[in-house]
């Protein structure tokens, strides 16, 4: 392979330009970051090159659509921030590595919150009375999807209060086109009624499953919702126990996905 030989023949730091522009594959990125961690001069160079790429970005500026500002600000107001990184090792050693980890750190920082959902997943594994029961394969598939969503590098968690009581929490991954939904402390409903989940967006309003809650308002397991479209929100309404093809009451909670909302 000509390319292989070619790239090996060059010192690794020649990759600095490609790296600063994300023009490397994932394994190359990882390898180069290992190299950077031990090479302060290389890091200094990358830093300078990144300033240059920031100028390239500035030059590409466009006028954002009018609705974007509100959407983003509203989403931010509903999004918990990541706590600052606390060094675990002496700073001089830790620095080069830490400074590179912008994106991975976000994922790591989500970990604590995701753990709560993971616990719910573990609980669900032993439960057979799930609404879409009798399809064990599907449950297993669902658990795989749950794992894929929770570990996706773009996993994001959002929570909102349910107006009638309780909290709805969503972990979503655009990359996986799916989200994991859980709720806690939901008000209990009369036997004839159930909470129903909906995807609501430009692609229409689609039922996303009936929520099975215990008497104490705790869900028996997380729900996986796939088939997300751009601009979707997720909402809950109270419906007849058999479910409805369309919402018949106002939502008790609505969550923007990807910050996009109407």
């Amino acid at each position, binding site marked *: 392979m000509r390319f292989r030989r070619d790239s090996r023949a060059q010192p690794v730091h*020649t990759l600095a*330009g490609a790296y600063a*522009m*994300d023009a490397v594959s994932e394994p190359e990125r990882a390898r180069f970051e290992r190299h950077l961690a031990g090479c302060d001069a290389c890091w200094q160079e990358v830093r300078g090159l990144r300033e240059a790429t920031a100028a*390239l970005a500035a030059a590409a*500026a466009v006028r954002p659509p009018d609705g*974007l500002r509100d959407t983003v600000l509203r989403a931010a107001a509903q*999004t918990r921030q990541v706590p600052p990184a606390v060094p675990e090792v002496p700073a001089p050693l830790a620095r080069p590595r830490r400074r590179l980890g912008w*994106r991975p750190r976000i994922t790591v920082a989500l970990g604590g919150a995701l753990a709560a959902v993971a616990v719910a997943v573990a609980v669900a594994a032993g439960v057979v009375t799930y609404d879409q029961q009798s399809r064990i394969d599907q449950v297993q598939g669902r658990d795989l999807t749950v794992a894929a969503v929770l570990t996706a590098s*773009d996993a994001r968690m959002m929570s909102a209060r349910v107006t009638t009581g309780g909290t709805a929490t969503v972990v979503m991954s655009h990359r996986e086109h799916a989200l994991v939904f859980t709720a806690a402390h939901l008000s209990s409903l009369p036997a004839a009624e159930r909470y129903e989940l909906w995807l609501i967006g430009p692609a229409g309003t689609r039922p996303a499953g009936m929520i099975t809650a215990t008497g104490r308002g705790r869900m028996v397991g997380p729900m996986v919702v796939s088939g997300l479209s751009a601009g979707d929100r997720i909402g809950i309404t109270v419906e007849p126990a058999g479910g409805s093809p369309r919402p018949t009451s106002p939502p008790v909670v609505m969550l923007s996905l990807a910050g996009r909302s109407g």
Partner: protein
Amino acid sequence: MTGSGRGPGGEPAGRLEPDRRQTGRPEGSPRRAADELGSLLARVALGDEEAYAALYDRTAGQVLGVVRAVVRDPAQSEEVAQEVLLDVWRSASRFDAELGSATAWVMTLAHRRAVDRVRSEQKAAERERRVPYASTAYDEVAEAVEARLDRERVRRCLASLTELQRESVTLAYYGGYTYREVAELLGVAIGTVKTRMRDGLIRLRDCLGVDA
């Protein structure tokens, strides 16, 4: 910006206009702007929503611009830009001014996410069909004076690169291609492209006089 209204990387190298005139960017202004953004970011880290709104106003256009250059599809670009902007809110505490400017931090997040999106979601065949630099993406080029100055400055500096450096840099950054893909596109050896990317960016950095 006249007529075409394209971004600086938008044109094939041969059509890059020579600089029309010196733009006379005020001395020190990039630095000052960077500092301002850095202190905004510090306030955002404390959950200051007003600071976040101000930060949004300063960065959203650039974030969307760079994402759109790479991703193209307007709806998807908007979605990615939202994710990036929300990332900025969420992880503001992780920004460290010692390690680079706030702008570079935000734009690195934006570019990386855009690139991740096209690499993970676009099938190889679709990528083939992407025409490097659709001019429509630049119909809404910001009219802000600052943005125009940035564009002219970058255009001028890009024009100072060799053709191969310029093509390598613009295909990688605005096109979101890997250096291997760029090598393929340009029919040039992979090692050459790597070197040109680095040399080109170094030259760009020096020409722009950005703080490192």
